[in-house]
């Protein structure tokens, strides 16, 4: 439905987007995930027409929109700071886009009522936006973007300014609303939990390029590059010192790999305790043991002053103590090859 082709943007001498390509399918929620400064917001602004790229094309349903000005693109954009109009009440805000479309007042009113219902704020028409709570503002902003029935809904860190508890609740609700209305959406965030919860597919961005585009499960289970793995806060990433055929040598041992990876990730799901005389087991000394509720996080000091971090369920006694000698094995399919 949406095709972004070779988008290049530079602010002065600083490249922000470097020939970026991305496709979003109809009714798909695509999440742009990356650290701040990676260009994800700029990409969104290019799609909206608020930023004019030096090169590249934005194609919607087969038609380029590069020459269409912002206000004629028919997209919806939800801003991180919500950007509600402080001089208008809730209804005035939501009706703004409808007014721009030239909808008669009666229909406008009906539509405002409908979208307020959708976002769960029925009866809020006359409220002053300055007196709404953070969550309510977020819903009004969403309602305002939904009201004109946009071809594409873009959301720029829409939960970024809310507190963590509210964020967790709203992200689920947001996905439900977008799916119910049946919209194509591009969602920008720097929080991978949020991305996992909302996205059909995630595009992980780094320094103006896309590192990996996949379903959330795949992104988590099989990150492709060192950047993606580190961005998801995985531990146990070891660079490949030397590679012989399909075997890579690292500071903590030799592992089977695919291709020519720069590093291997020993996925925390695949680390298990084994007897000390098991072949290929990694030996180490427990350095830290932290109770984390549903288990213990163990930091194991292994050869060459490296460390392995993994979780043991609290249901598997005996709990290792600090200083104890342990042996662990890695499930072969949880050894992930990472490109540089």
């Amino acid at each position: 439905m949406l095709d972004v082709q070779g988008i290049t943007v530079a602010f002065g001498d600083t490249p922000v987007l470097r020939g970026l390509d991305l496709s979003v399918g109809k009714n798909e929620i695509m999440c742009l995930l990356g650290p701040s400064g990676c260009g994800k917001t700029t990409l969104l602004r290019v799609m909206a027409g608020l930023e004019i790229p030096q090169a590249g094309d934005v194609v919607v349903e087969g038609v380029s929109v590069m020459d269409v000005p912002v206000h004629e693109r028919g997209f919806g954009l939800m801003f991180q700071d919500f950007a509600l109009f402080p001089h208008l009440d809730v209804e005035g805000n939501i009706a703004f886009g409808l007014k721009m479309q030239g909808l008669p007042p009666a229909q406008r009113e009906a539509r405002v009522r409908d979208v307020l219902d959708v976002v769960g704020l029925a009866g809020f028409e006359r409220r002053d936006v300055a007196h709404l709570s953070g969550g309510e503002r977020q819903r009004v902003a969403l309602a305002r973007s939904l009201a004109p029935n946009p071809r594409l809904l873009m959301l720029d860190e829409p939960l970024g300014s809310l507190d963590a508890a509210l964020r967790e609740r709203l992200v689920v609700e947001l996905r439900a609303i977008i799916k119910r209305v049946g919209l194509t959406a591009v969602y920008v965030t720097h929080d991978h939990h949020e991305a996992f919860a909302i996205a059909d597919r995630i595009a992980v961005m780094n320094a103006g390029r896309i590192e990996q585009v996949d379903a959330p499960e795949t992104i988590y289970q099989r990150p492709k590059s060192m950047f993606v793995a580190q961005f998801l806060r995985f531990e146990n990433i070891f660079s490949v010192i030397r590679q012989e055929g399909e075997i890579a040598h690292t500071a903590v041992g030799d592992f089977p790999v695919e291709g020519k990876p720069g590093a291997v990730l020993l996925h925390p799901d695949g680390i298990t305790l084994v007897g000390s005389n098991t072949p290929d087991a990694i030996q180490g000394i427990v350095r830290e043991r932290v109770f984390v509720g549903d288990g213990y996080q163990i930091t194991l000091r292994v050869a060459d002053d490296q460390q392995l971090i993994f979780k043991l369920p609290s249901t598997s006694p005996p709990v290792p103590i600090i200083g104890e000698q342990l042996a662990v094995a890695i499930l072969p399919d949880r050894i992930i090859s990472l490109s540089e």
Partner: protein
Amino acid sequence: MDANRPALKRWGFLWRGLLLVPLLFLILFFFYPLASIFGVSLTLEGQFDLSEFADVIASGYYRETLWFTIWQAALSTGLTLALALPGAYVFARFQFPGKSLLLSLATLPFVLPTVVVAAAFSALIGPRGVVNSLLMDTFGLNAPPIQLDRTLTLVLIAHVFYNYAVALRMISSYWSNQNPRMEEAARVLGAHGWRLWWAVRLPVLRPAITAAGILVFIFTFTSFGVVLILGGPRFATLEVEIYRQAVNLFNLPMAAALSLVQIGLMFAVMVVYTRLQKRIASDSVSAKKAARRPQNWREWTFIAANLLFMTGLLFAPLVALVARSFTGDNGFTTQYYQQLTINSRNSVLFVPPAQSIGNSVLFAILTTFLALMLGLITAYLLSRSQGRLTNLLDPLFMLPLATSAVTLGFGYIIALDEPPLNLRASPVLIPLAHTLVAMPFVVRSALPALRSIPPSVQEAARVLGASPWRAWWLVEIPLISRGLIVGATFAFTVSMGEFGASLFVARPDTPTMPIVIYRLLEQPGAVNYGQALAMSSLLMLVSGVAFILIERLRTAGIGEF
């Protein structure tokens, strides 16, 4: 976050063209007249020549004038600070009924024209004033017992009247932002009474006191109307002397040299002030406001004494002005108001005083329009672009505020009376001069409002289908409208009351209200005096209405002064 840049590229060309307008205005009607003053003072027959300037600087008369200007300003500043400090304490630390109303009323003098204030003090304690008449009637005296007319004392009192509220507001707002726990700590450590003031309060308040002091010094150093009218011929600040040399004695090189000294000194002081003000702004911590209700009779007395002084200082002259304007030889009369419409001299050039009301209103409307247009464009320029250009332009557009109106008026008559720009015969000079003085107020009122609009709000309107023009009209204009109204009201009021520049550029047949008041005050006779007070009362009414409008609309964010 990724950088937010306004997508103004397509509009860039038109935009830049529009921005040239206020810049051109500034060059033509500010820098060119100023440069002409330099020309008169620093050249002789087309050659750069410092001898004339040096002669002026070396003369004893000049040094006396400069010395008087400095010490009367210093004295006024010291008096104002000493009187405002206890008041600031009351407003910073105590909560009492009517507090916010009083605080906003205290800014009234800010919009009162100097001629009105001069007339008001004359009506209160002048030889024909309310107090003297009362004393003479009560004790059967033949001569007014209080002889303050044309004395420095009267000038100083008027200066305190003008600047009391400035100092009070600056110091008390800074004070109320200081953590009261600090004082409590000092008390626990054993400080109390005078030592608490000396060792803790004053040092803590020093930045605010210094900034207020500098501002008051600037205002009183450039004092013109008050000194000219209340001081009489014996006293002259640089400003008054520039006027006298240029208009009465036609000694242009002398006037130009004095203007140069004035401009140089003011810019220097202004730079110091701007630095300090930035520090005060960043210094203020958002501590819990510590205003509390007074707890014992001593605190109540202290508060009452201060409020009494404040209301007396601020309102007694104004009440006296109105009362005196309705008082004739036989009690209540409206004759002074009626006589305003009569052309008493039947001279071609001397018009009925009431006609000046029409002139003033017309000039004020023109000024408001011009100042709004130019000020809005300037505010956009300053809010949208960042970087070196803005850093350069921002103070540039504020320069007229630091330049005295008299200097400006003087520059106009020497610069704009010959080709290429011969406007001497044109009444348009008045609104032009007023616009220059008023424009900074519009910019300062609109700029904070514009800066407080996040770019995303305008972008949200665009994404929702509003063309740039509609987004501007439906979103930005409503959001800055309060700031614009405040700016426009300021512009209107400034123009109505402007005295210094008008005195130079007003043509005899198109005088403004302040000029007519000045002329009437200068002439002998009870009728002239009564008419001056009547006209002043009318002008005060205009300022008063404007003031109420401004105070009602001004919210925390509007107006960076």
